[in-house]
């Protein structure tokens, strides 16, 4: 017990972040599994219903159960964040590994390009991609995914630069290991501690970016619900039903808080 208290005191962010993230995931999961309402089913009689046993969080302007909708919207938002980060990490690893390991002219060009992209606010870049491709769930994933690649590429590259001349890599090379094997079997696992915390922080950014885009109406399109979209709907009824906007906003804020604390904690540990 004392040991646990000591650990928590040493890195409170990690534990607070893990608990908040776990609770949010559980709330969303329970909502998906056990709330007996279709998130899209309208019911005029329940318009703006206050929280009750039948509707734990009340209903929205179409009489749809708010908990069911928050759970569905949260699931969409998290799915988009997961897919986005996955694209960023996978392509980031490929670009970072090759540029870091081989260096040379290609590295110079790609990194200058990377710097130029990184200097821009991610939402602006995503807006450019969206305005070319059009909106919708998969387009949001692709546009945010592209935007996320440079930051991961840079992290992986610097780790590869650090590792490529270490003794274990030299000995693998002496044993005749192929470059690809050295890169992905020997070096890559050593980048995981650093990569893990940036992946979690990436989640945080992805949730925020998706929510902003859907809030602006250029992200997820109805009838799919996402938290950002719901918040933008809720704003119209702010005076009549402040609970709608506040619950939706707090859900987004707690998901972001959980991931950002977890990311900070992991960084401290790495």
């Amino acid at each position, binding site marked *: 017990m004392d040991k646990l208290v000591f650990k928590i005191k040493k890195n409170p962010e990690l534990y607070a972040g893990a608990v908040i993230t776990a609770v949010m995931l559980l709330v969303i999961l329970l909502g998906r599994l056990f709330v007996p309402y279709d998130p899209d089913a309208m019911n005029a009689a329940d318009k703006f219903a206050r929280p009750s046993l039948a509707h734990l969080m009340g209903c929205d302007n179409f009489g749809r159960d708010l908990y069911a909708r928050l759970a569905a919207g949260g699931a969409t938002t998290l799915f988009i964040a997961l897919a986005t980060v996955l694209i960023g990490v996978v392509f980031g690893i490929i670009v970072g590994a090759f540029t870091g390991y081989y260096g040379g002219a290609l590295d110079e060009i790609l990194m*200058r*390009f990377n710097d*130029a992209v990184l*200097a*821009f*606010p991610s*939402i*602006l870049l995503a*807006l*450019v991609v*969206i*305005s*070319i491709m059009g909106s919708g769930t998969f387009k949001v994933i692709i546009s945010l995914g592209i935007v996320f690649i440079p930051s991961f590429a840079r992290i992986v590259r610097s780790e590869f630069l650090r590792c490529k001349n270490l003794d274990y890599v030299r000995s693998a090379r002496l044993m005749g290991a192929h470059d690809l094997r050295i890169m992905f079997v020997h070096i890559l696992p050593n980048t995981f501690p650093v990569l893990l915390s940036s992946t979690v922080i990436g989640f945080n950014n992805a949730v*925020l970016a998706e*929510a*902003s885009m859907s*809030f*602006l*109406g*250029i992200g997820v399109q109805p009838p799919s619900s996402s938290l*950002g979209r719901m*918040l933008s709907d*809720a*704003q119209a009824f*702010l*005076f009549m039903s*402040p609970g709608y*906007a*506040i619950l939706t*906003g707090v859900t*987004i*804020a*707690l998901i*972001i*808080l959980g991931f*950002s*604390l977890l990311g900070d904690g992991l960084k401290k540990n790495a």
Partner: protein
Amino acid sequence: MKTVLKKSITFIFTVLLVTFFVFIAFELIPGDAATARLGTNATPEALAKLREELGLTRPFFVRYFSWLASFFFGDMGTSYSYGVSVRSMLAQKLPITLTLTLMSFILTVAVSIPIGLLTSKYEDRAVSTVLDVTGQLTMSVPPFFLGILVTYIFGMILHMFTPGGFVSYNVNFVRFIGYLVFPAISIALPKAAMSTKLLKTSILSERNLDYVRSAYSRGNSTMDVLYKHVLKNAIIPVITFLGMTLADIVAGSLVIEQVFSIPGYGRLLISSIANRDYPVVQAIIAIIAMIVIIINLLVDILYRVLDPRLRDM
């Protein structure tokens, strides 16, 4: 001198790269300016004639450089939806977005530096913990939700402003500023929380260095050491962060304008994306990109002025 040259070359390279991408991105969209103007029912002859007039038949790089040149001389084309010049549409809105950005930035700096100093000075006291936790919470609230909370609390409960009652700067300047205070708060608070945290971390790590001990041993007071020695070094990473934040604030104001119904660049950009009014989208993106690049350059210069160690690097 070498640095200045190197920086200028990087600057020009970035400007070319970014404008090139903005240009090429909108070239990739199916349908060109001629089809956009004449509609899908236009005859091929009419299209070919208009393309010739608009110069769309010229080689790609010629078109890029002529677009770039006219962009810098203020000719940004004509809006598809409104038929007026993009320049005149943007010129009216520039003061709005610019004022909002500046107000948010000033607020960010004005809030974060005193609080950052305070919380690092009383590092082990309850005050600092309370401020840290508040900061962490503030950081996690997305600006658009903060905007909605501000609208609800200050607008609907306390009646300090009328939500949606934006007054333009050429109608009543005082009320214009009065309205923008609330969106500026919504943009600034999360940024201020981040910058406070960074300043604290930076001060705490500087405080353990040898030069600080030497300063104390020479008989300086705590205040003297903090302001004259530590802050000078600790502020440098914060300046970089604030520079990056300024770029973020420009982007953040695009979203906040939507929350507070402010007719600036953000709302125009979003509606132009929805209407596929590409000349407008292209111009706004290019202008914001330019602002971001120039801010980055200024931060880089400021950085060197503040930290002599970097000057010859």
